């Protein structure tokens, strides 16, 4: 932390938000100084978004009531932080403070729409989570950037265009000149988020609010965006409020961290303090659950175990219809691997690299163009009729999203017993009930929950139900496709533990698909790295993590947040 105390850019005090009678933010306070980054972390639904929207006056929900105070400081970035300002900063931004306090600050809670409009875009820039929907599809990038320049700086025509060009260049868009007239759909997701950042920084705001700006992106892209923001912040001295559910990421970017839980602020500390000396048990739990490289290893599996699954030369192509015609996507290109009984094979790769396609081929959801798969002597891809049905008993699958992999209209019991019914193993009503109870107990759920509906369960509980259903037929191979990705870290940790215990107890073999290498390291004996449908590396986990051979693998590894926040490394206390 900087030793000098300066006026904060944004000071939030006892902010409370209620939607109707339900409080969703219960007294949050923080302040962020120029050039500093405040991280807000917490599980999904903990009120992170509500907090910043309410604090910046952008909350637009029928029935939402905001109390408390949020003051936007007046000082220009240059005066306060000593950091260099952008080329055009300062010009004309001085007199924009609204009808706030006499000292040039602006109270944002309860401010008039006019005041807020003057502040938004000019003094506060926003970057939202989903870059694919945050940009207007029918306006050119140049136009979207220059809009706020026009509104707040009176810039138009040539000048605005020049500024837009500078901004695109600054956020690292290649060939910015030609991109000025491009439309959002012509960019990749990462590039779109860069443009969003350019939009947010157009008027050199004193404050940048970034709400999960990288959640929708690949790990590698995420690392680039983090780097970009840090670099710009460093150059311009902008204060940043960065929201994420990922404590590892927050550790990388933030100077100070606020931890929210159920709308309550449980802890607010400088990041290093927080990591080194967490006070609140919830913070400790979050830290412990954080998937970190090199922290956990799976229980060793017998190396001599016979191969259960042998895949050779798998080849999958999809025909894709786009408005411009049909094209092909080579989702899997000559993929081969062996999976031994009782082992876990981790499959990693960026989004779209073909991970799920492997799972879909093995479960019969996708028919490959070539290759073979052999499950202990049975050709998986050639079975028909009865034999196929028998095969289905041996391979079970657990999907990513616990919210959609259970039919909301069926009770837990019905869902779990469905495979039993299908394979005629129900053994009468009573038999099925007993088996369901047994399965629920196996995944640490009360047997009585068989009568509940999915909406009565939390995400983690639902995923347990999915696992119970997958285990109903006592499969040999369980395919887990991002089965923990959508869970909050603490819950994810518990589910991973459960999987490990089941493997130990039942001798299960896992094909574990994930994009998060830290999670993969935690459960896998072997790792398969996929890039655009091709296998780039396939080795024992220990070897791979110790000594990644391919650039791609190294890039994936580099993107994982380190144990100790990088902020700490950059700025020794």
């Amino acid at each position, binding site marked *: 932390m900087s030793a000098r105390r300066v006026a904060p850019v944004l000071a939030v005090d006892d902010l409370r938000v209620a939607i109707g009678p339900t409080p969703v933010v219960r007294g949050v306070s923080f302040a962020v100084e120029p050039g500093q980054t405040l991280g807000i972390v917490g599980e999904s639904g903990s009120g992170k978004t509500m907090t910043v929207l309410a604090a910046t006056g952008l909350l637009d929900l029928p029935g939402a009531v905001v109390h408390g105070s949020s003051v936007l400081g007046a000082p220009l970035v240059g005066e306060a932080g000593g950091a260099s300002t952008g080329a055009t900063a300062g010009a004309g931004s001085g007199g924009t403070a609204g009808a706030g306090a006499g000292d040039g600050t602006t109270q944002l809670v309860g401010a008039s729409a006019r005041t807020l409009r003057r502040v938004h875009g000019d003094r506060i820039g926003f970057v939202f989570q989903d870059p694919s929907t945050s940009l207007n599809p029918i306006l050119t990038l140049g136009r979207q950037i220059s809009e706020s320049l026009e509104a707040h700086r009176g810039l138009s025509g040539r000048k605005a265009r020049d500024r837009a060009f500078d901004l695109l260049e600054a956020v690292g868009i290649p060939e910015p000149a030609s991109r000025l007239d491009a439309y959002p759909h012509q960019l990749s997701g990462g590039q779109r988020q860069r443009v969003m950042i350019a939009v947010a920084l157009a008027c050199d705001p004193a404050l940048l609010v970034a709400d999960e700006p990288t959640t929708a992106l690949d790990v590698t892209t995420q690392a680039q965006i983090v780097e970009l923001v840090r670099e710009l912040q460093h150059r311009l001295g902008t204060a940043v409020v960065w929201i994420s559910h990922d404590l590892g990421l927050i550790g990388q970017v933030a100077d100070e961290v606020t931890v929210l839980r159920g709308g309550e602020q449980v802890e607010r500390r400088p990041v290093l303090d927080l990591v080194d000396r967490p006070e609140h048990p919830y913070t400790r739990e979050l830290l412990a659950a954080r998937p970190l490289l090199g922290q956990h290893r799976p229980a060793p599996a017998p190396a001599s175990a016979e191969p259960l699954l042998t895949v050779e030369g798998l080849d999958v192509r999809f025909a894709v219809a786009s408005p411009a015609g049909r094209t092909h996507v080579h989702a899997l290109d000559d993929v081969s691997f062996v999976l031994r009984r009782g082992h876990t094979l981790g499959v990693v790769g960026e989004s779209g690299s073909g991970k799920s396609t492997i799972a879909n081929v093995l479960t019969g*959801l996708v028919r490959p163009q070539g290759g073979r798969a052999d499950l202990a002597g049975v050709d998986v891809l050639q079975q028909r009729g009865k034999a196929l049905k028998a095969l289905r008993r041996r391979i079970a699958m657990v*999907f990513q999203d616990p*919210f959609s992999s259970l039919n*909301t209209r069926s009770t837990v019991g019905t869902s779990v017993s469905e*495979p039993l019914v299908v394979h005629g193993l129900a053994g009468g009503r009573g038999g099925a009930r007993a088996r369901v109870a047994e399965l629920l107990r196996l995944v640490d759920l009360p047997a009585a929950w068989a009568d509940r509906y999915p909406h*009565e369960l*939390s995400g983690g509980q639902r995923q347990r139900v999915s696992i119970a259903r997958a285990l109903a037929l006592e499969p040999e191979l369980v395919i887990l496709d991002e089965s923990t990705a959508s869970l909050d870290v603490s819950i994810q940790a518990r589910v991973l533990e459960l999987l490990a215990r089941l493997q130990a107890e039942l001798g299960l073999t896992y094909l574990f698909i994930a994009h998060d290498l830290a999670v993969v390291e935690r459960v896998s004996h072997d790792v398969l790295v996929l890039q655009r449908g091709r296998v780039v590396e396939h080795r024992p986990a220990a070897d791979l993590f110790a000594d990644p051979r391919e650039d791609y693998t190294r890039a994936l590894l580099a993107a994982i947040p380190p144990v100790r926040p990088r902020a700490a490394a950059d700025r020794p206390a």
Partner: protein
Amino acid sequence: MTQLTPGSPLPEDAVPGQPGGPSGVATAARPDEGPAARPAAGWRLLLDSPVNVVSAVVLLVVLVVALLGPALAPYAVNAVDVPAALQPPSGAHWFGTDDLGRDVLSRTLVATRVSLQVAVVAVAFALVVGVGAGIVSGYAGGWLDTVLMRLVDVMFAFPVMLLALAIVAVLGPGLTTTQLAIGIVYTPIFARVARASALSVRVEPFVQVSRTMGTGHALILRRHILPGIAGPVIVQTSLSVAFAILSEAALSFLGLGVQPPRPSWGRMLFDAQGFLSQAWWMAVFPGLAIFVTVLAFNLLGDGLRDVLDPRQRSLLRTRRLLRAHRRAGVRP
């Protein structure tokens, strides 16, 4: 025109989102560990809106009238009494009498059954055929889907009224023809709705899970697909009944629908045509009956859509909570 809206192939309005679907609900409450409270049941949300309640009550009344029609009617429906023709509304004849001295109130009441029956039979036909085709198309995919959907495209290219007219031209006017014509006309919209829903349900992970477990098509259809498309189909049914009533009225108004002496609302308007300036009541009351019934169906359809559409649903819940709160006198 009026009769045509159901055919408009606009996905926005025709296919409300999937209840419980994965899309668009990311911001809605996601409970963490520890079960969430059971949300307000759909029908309670439905009856929360006074508009919906009024619509439901109106429809209930219409239904009762349809069932009891002749019993409620003060006069025999076809009893001609020419000397008493064209009497304005009075104590003896609340809705006046028509050109043959028949009681307009009695005819309007009895017509309820005919109008409703035509609409319901027609929509039932459309529902069974359309939903069947739509599910097969959406679930099976492939060339069957292509062929069926081309067929639906073709049907959509026909203007509703002209197609109905053409069918009547071929089969001759009458009750059965009317039902068939309207039924055929409304089949493609059901096919589209069912197909769209079946398609979206088919790719739902819980269906994928079923497939990976080796569940047969029949069971998947019964357990997952059918309940999955129920919401949109219910909404479409409500709206289609409304439009079918209008279509029947239009066909009968042209003299090509229900045949005399059997009264339907549209036929009564046809009969009233020549008497507009002398006997407004002959046109006004059956017209009002159509208007009110159709409006009730439409409003209820809208209400159903709101309740069955997840995005609307969370909004409704918030409103409901807000109202409860205000009633309790607590300020947030």
